[in-house]
């Protein structure tokens, strides 16, 4: 009875089109942001920040990018890891070859490079779809894996293909302690998620969804499939590239191509499916789920006094993820996001059953 919309009449279209039209939602989001920006840095341990929150945020951002491509525009991509790699390596190259360049510029330029590569590998989507497009994106994944491993130019001729970043500064402030890194990443995630949400609820988002749902009809109302698909690849790759740069710079510190391999691509796809295809907030749910399951699988048995060997944990993880993918695809293709909104619907009429 506290989640009622009684008395909340919208008197303008602007009010109706807010991202969070219900007052209680707006309050909840403000509280969440306050916790994220103020509460967490004050209270969270270093371990929580480094091992859980920072990876969660960066992977959520990548999942938002992938969701735009797969969930909103309906183009399958199995090469997301590769686009993250492009973002990371490009940003590193800019930083190494132009020592004075600010961190923000390095990361954004990394995103731009990922955009170029993403659009290039997105061109096949104009002629092929479904499984065949998946194969094209796999080609991107394997080719880019190889490129960063074997073309010495990209790693500035380092012998192992391993690159690392120095101590980071943004606008003169250090980005080195766990809390500083967390806030830096949080800012990126909030800003980019907001922009992504604006895009998907505007004209471009409608174009993407039209192409996803029925591209012939889309052409008839004047939508150009080429423009829609390539912008989807472009925006998605940009966000994924930025996430890749953040992953390398902030979370890993030093990395090799393996950090962005095919299993990373699958991991992101799973986040998007479990969290909800076509839902920005669903990307966050999916990322949270995928980040927390391994933590739970190793933590709970240890807490119960029966620690499990690492490889067994990995196998159980695979089983759990696989089973959940199948479950969600059968029972609720719109994933956790839909389950959450069903839950909210029930909450709106609580304590009545219907």
């Amino acid at each position, binding site marked *: 009875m506290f989640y009622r919309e009684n008395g909340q009449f919208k008197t303008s*279209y*602007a009010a109706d*089109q807010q991202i969070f039209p219900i007052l209680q939602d707006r309050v909840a989001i403000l509280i969440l942001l306050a916790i994220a920006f103020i509460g967490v840095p004050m209270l969270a341990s270093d371990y929580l920040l480094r091992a859980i929150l920072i990876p969660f945020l960066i992977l959520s951002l990548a999942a938002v990018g992938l969701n735009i491509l797969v969930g909103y525009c309906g183009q399958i991509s199995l090469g997301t890891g590769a686009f993250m790699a492009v973002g990371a390596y490009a940003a590193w190259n800019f930083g190494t070859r132009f020592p004075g360049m600010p961190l923000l510029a390095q990361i954004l330029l990394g995103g731009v490079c990922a955009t170029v590569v993403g659009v290039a590998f997105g061109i096949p989507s104009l002629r092929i779809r479904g499984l065949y497009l998946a194969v094209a994106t796999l080609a991107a994944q394997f080719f880019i894996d190889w490129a960063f491993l074997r073309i010495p130019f990209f790693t500035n001729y380092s012998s192992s293909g391993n690159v690392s970043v120095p101590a980071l500064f943004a606008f003169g402030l250090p980005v080195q302690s766990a809390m500083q890194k967390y806030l830096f990443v949080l800012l990126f995630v909030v800003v980019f998620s907001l*922009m*992504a949400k*604006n*895009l998907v609820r*505007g*004209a*471009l988002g*409608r*174009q993407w*969804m*039209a192409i*996803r*749902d*029925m591209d*012939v*009809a*889309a*052409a*008839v*109302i*004047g*939508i*150009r499939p080429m423009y829609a698909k390539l*912008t989807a690849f472009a*925006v998605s790759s940009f966000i994924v590239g930025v996430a890749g740069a953040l992953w390398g710079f902030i979370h890993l510190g030093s990395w090799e191509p393996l950090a962005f391999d095919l299993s990373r691509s699958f991991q992101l796809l799973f986040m998007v499916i479990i969290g909800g295809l*076509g839902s920005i907030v669903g990307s966050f749910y999916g990322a949270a789920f995928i980040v927390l399951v391994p933590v739970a699988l190793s933590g709970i048995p240890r807490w119960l006094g029966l620690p499990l060997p690492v490889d067994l944990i990995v196998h159980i993880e695979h089983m759990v993820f696989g089973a959940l993918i199948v479950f969600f695809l059968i029972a609720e293709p719109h994933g956790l996001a839909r389950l959450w909104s069903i839950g909210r619907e029930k909450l709106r009429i609580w304590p009545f059953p219907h």
Partner: protein
Amino acid sequence: MTQSTSRNDRIGEVILDLQHISLAFGGVKALTDISFDVREHEIRAIIGPNGAGKSSMLNVINGVYTPQQGEIRLHGEQFRRMTPRRAAEMGVARTFQNLALFKGMSVLDNIMAGRNLRMTSSLFAQAIRLGPAAREEMQHRQFVENIIDFLEIQAFRKTPVGRLPYGLQKRVDLGRALAMEPRILLLDEPMAGMNIEEKQDMSRFILDVNDEFGTTIVLIEHDMGVVMDISDRVVVLDYGKKIGDGEPEAVRANEDVVRAYLGVAH
């Protein structure tokens, strides 16, 4: 029921002229040497038995199919090849026999998608949304809400179209076409699968669109009552050929047409 004289007065010059259109798929001849014209502000019906090529004709008009022979003259410009996008830009909108709605989107979003050609905000402006992009969105929302009012589907604006009953989905299809502010509206069996009440509603909508906005309407329809009632002129197709063309009364009396519909062996 005779056409009101005010309707006849409003009918203008030829805006769509199809010249010797022939269309074949492999060995199947869908259309053979079809020529007819459509005048501005009129309601032109295309009728004929199943498989006569009526939908193919509409597909040729808005560029989904390219005919092997023939040309299209639209708003005075001659076209050898038409594409769906060019047709849309030149003010041709259409609905589909099997409903081509965007099932994953709400009613509002489906109809807003029809405003696509008129929305000009850049990608960056849309990402930031404050200012020009937001204003443009509101402006088009206003227009679309008028269409929603006109079609009496206000209660369903946020519902995903996949969940609506068939009759309402047909209205959304019409709404999306209307959102394009078309000069020519192609309707492919808008009343298929409807009961009498729904047909009366749809007929009213079609007549209102023609009256209030002056939109030229080309419609494929099987219900003879509707065709005779609302159309100004009729084209009859059979096996891809034109067998009748003129006012409804004249066409109804045409022997060839009667034979085609009653199925005498050819």
